[in-house]
């Protein structure tokens, strides 16, 4: 069902290695065309990386220079005062980073605990109504979570989950679960039958086969689920804005908006850009380290 897996046999490594049988080689580029493409690439790189570089440079300016009008492109002197300000902002940066990390960690655990067995059940067992149940599991894809936030908020407030890590983590798991189940199902399906048959011959129960035989083989799927859940939970904005309305419960994105609001209406631009840098650095590092998982996961879950 669904997605682009079928259109993209090379999903695992589109960005990294596409093999040189790609359309480009056959296109037979002339030398001039190659130079032109190279020049456009450099221009595009500058456009894409520019905003992040400018923000980084603003974050290491002195607070006065960062708020100067007209602005400077490059810092006249390098200062870490903006970072210091963010570090000591209200309850302290560590509180907000801690909240974001705790929520992401719980969301990852929830997604894996639910999606790994579900993927196994869907891929490896035959029972009546399986297709219907699969569609129900993917239902959250079709219903915008933005619409569900009001009833979820009321329910959570009743049982004391408002302003709690667990409450927001549940919402983030709701967001991530369809993708996770879909991905885990595909992972389990791609394991050859013979491996399972060998386990049955040995007399393992289905749970033993899951734990001892399948789990090691679906590690790439598990990594991808954890990766996406982390990034999406770390970045999620609307639910965090609604559910975490107590200052000490803010996540990093909500803290940033609060930094911008500043005092007396004046925006502290340097501190704001330092905050932006802090919030994007984990995502950038993870992306660079795990690019292969990230891009293939994106293509697999393009339906989301």
């Amino acid at each position, binding site marked *: 069902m669904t997605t682009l897996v079928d259109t993209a046999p*090379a999903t695992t490594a589109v960005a990294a290695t596409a093999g040189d049988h790609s359309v480009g080689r056959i296109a037979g580029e002339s030398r001039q065309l190659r130079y032109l493409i190279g020049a456009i690439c450099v221009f*595009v*790189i500058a456009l894409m990386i520019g*905003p992040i570089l*400018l923000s980084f440079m603003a974050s290491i300016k002195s607070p006065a220079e960062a708020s100067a009008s007209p602005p400077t492109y490059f810092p006249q002197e390098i200062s870490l005062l903006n970072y210091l300000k963010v570090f000591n902002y209200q309850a302290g940066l560590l509180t907000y980073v801690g909240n974001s990390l705790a929520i992401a960690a719980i969301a990852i655990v929830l997604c894996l605990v639910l999606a790994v067995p579900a993927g196994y059940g869907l891929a490896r067992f035959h029972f009546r109504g399986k297709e219907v*149940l699969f569609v129900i*599991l993917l239902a959250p894809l079709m219903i*915008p979570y933005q619409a569900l936030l009001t009833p979820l908020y009321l329910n959570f407030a009743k049982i004391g989950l408002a302003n709690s890590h667990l409450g927001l983590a549940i919402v983030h798991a709701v967001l991530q679960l369809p993708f996770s189940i879909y991905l885990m199902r595909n992972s389990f399906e791609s394991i050859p039958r013979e491996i399972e048959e060998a386990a049955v011959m040995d007399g393992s129960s289905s749970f033993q086969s899951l734990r001892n035989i399948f789990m090691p083989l679906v590690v790439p799927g598990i990594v991808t689920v954890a990766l996406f859940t982390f990034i999406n939970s770390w970045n999620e904005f609307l639910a965090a804005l609604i559910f975490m309305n107590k200052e000490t419960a803010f996540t990093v994105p909500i803290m940033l908006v609060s930094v911008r609001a500043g005092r007396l209406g004046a925006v502290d631009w340097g501190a704001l850009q330092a905050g*932006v840098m802090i919030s994007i650095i984990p995502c950038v590092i993870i992306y660079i380290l795990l690019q292969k998982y990230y891009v293939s996961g994106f293509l697999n879950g393009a339906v989301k």
Partner: protein
Amino acid sequence: VSTRLSKHAGILYIAPALLFVAAFVLWPLCQLAYLSMTNASLLGGAEWVGFENYAKAMKDKTFWTALWFTTRYTIVITPILIGLGFFLALLTLRNTPLRQITRTIIFLPVVIGLGSSSLLWYWLFDQQVGLFNKILVDLHIIQAPLVWFTKVDMALIAVTISITWKVIGFGMILFVAAFQSINSEIMEAATIDGANYGQRVWSIILPLSVRTILLATLISAIGSMLAFDQFYIMTGGGPRGQTFTSVYWIYQNSFISFKLGYGAALSIILTAIILFFSALQVALSNRGANA
């Protein structure tokens, strides 16, 4: 393992996920439908009012303005994302080191938060301290720094620029995958027959990417129809509430004005609109899978 046992086991394995979806998606959806028939307030109290909220929504000018603004935003940004994504995929398709790096960097903003990128661009667009304005002035494109967020059309352009930067890598990757699945023999044959680059793009790559174009269009449409973060952060709904999006207006009603019942009715209307698009998307994905 006996087949009978494994039948039950299969359901047992998916049961936790089913319960989770029932408790945190399906049940809240029912509650939402019920809420939409009441005048529930965040401050407490709720009475049954039937379809009154829906009748009110029909006459709510701000809601229709918000829905129309969201649609306009979707209509503006979707062709840009598709066209530019297609172009960038063509540009970086071949695996030379430079083009691989270009692809990696184009995709980079996709992984950072929409909140963070919106705050970054809010700063770049600022009239006093914004470097986007300064670059335009230094390049003599404009005379003096512009105020981007006090006019609807300017605000729409600014948000469109920032979101294009943020998500263009996604469209590009979809197209790269689609192009790479095109049989290279077809391209070779066309080249031997003397088709030039433009002709090959127009008569082979484009027709074979129709499904990806449709899929990318729907993904972009759904995402844009649900836009919130970028407008909340960059325009705050202003000027005079003209850049409220649908989700933003729902948030405003439910959590700022405390009118949960009315917000729920608006949510149901929005859900119906999104369901239409997602159903199309799933149908499209399935057709591709079966073909």
